[in-house]
């Protein structure tokens, strides 16, 4: 999971390393995702999320489709 300068840089890196493309998201979406995903990691009452709860976070940010399915 890597940060790039732009989608052009992603495309070149994929081509040069012969990787199958995954999915690209903006830094803004990634930041929202990180806050939803990691925001409670240090909470004293932390409990593991269910897979359904994790999937709901991805869905809410529009990260849908087969690629984003956790199972």
């Amino acid at each position, binding site marked *: *999971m*890597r*940060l*790039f*300068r*732009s*989608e052009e*840089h*992603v495309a*070149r*890196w*994929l081509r*040069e390393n012969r*990787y*199958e493309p*995954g*999915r*690209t*998201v*903006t*830094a*803004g*979406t*990634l*930041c*929202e*995702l*990180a*806050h939803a*995903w*990691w*925001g*409670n*990691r*240090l909470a*004293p009452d*932390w*409990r*593991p999320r269910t897979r359904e709860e994790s999937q709901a976070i*991805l869905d809410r940010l529009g990260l849908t489709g*087969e*690629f*984003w*399915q*956790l*199972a």
Partner: protein
Amino acid sequence: MDQSDLALRNHVYRRFAELGRAPELAETADELGLLAERAEAGLRRLHDAHWLVLESDRPEIRMANPFSAVPTPHRVEAGGRTWYANCGWDAFGIPAALGVDGHISSTCPDCGEAIELDVIDRRPKPNRDVFHVLVPARSWWEDIVFT
């Protein structure tokens, strides 16, 4: 997983945030009043449950996501400390977990140029870089270090 595993996990995360580094097995055992063997068995259960990641060759913490116990290309200034993140996603996760603003320094894997951005009020500034996820979600844990 039971309440003692949850307590162990929460202790490790709390100490990681306090120390600015991963607590060592001996420290964790000592602080919780456990025999080292029992603490190690507990950490291995946490590893198996994907609650943290141990080094492949010893029972020491490699990742307590979003925090990395080893230097990586993703450095984060947040809460008065410097942290390492496991990936671009985790780099944003460190300010999120700490509940503070932060500054992320990374490197574009394509051109090697520095990527510098702030996270202010839960938003990236500037918001111009992109994030690529190579591995489908269902396979993220097959090789979490690569992912």
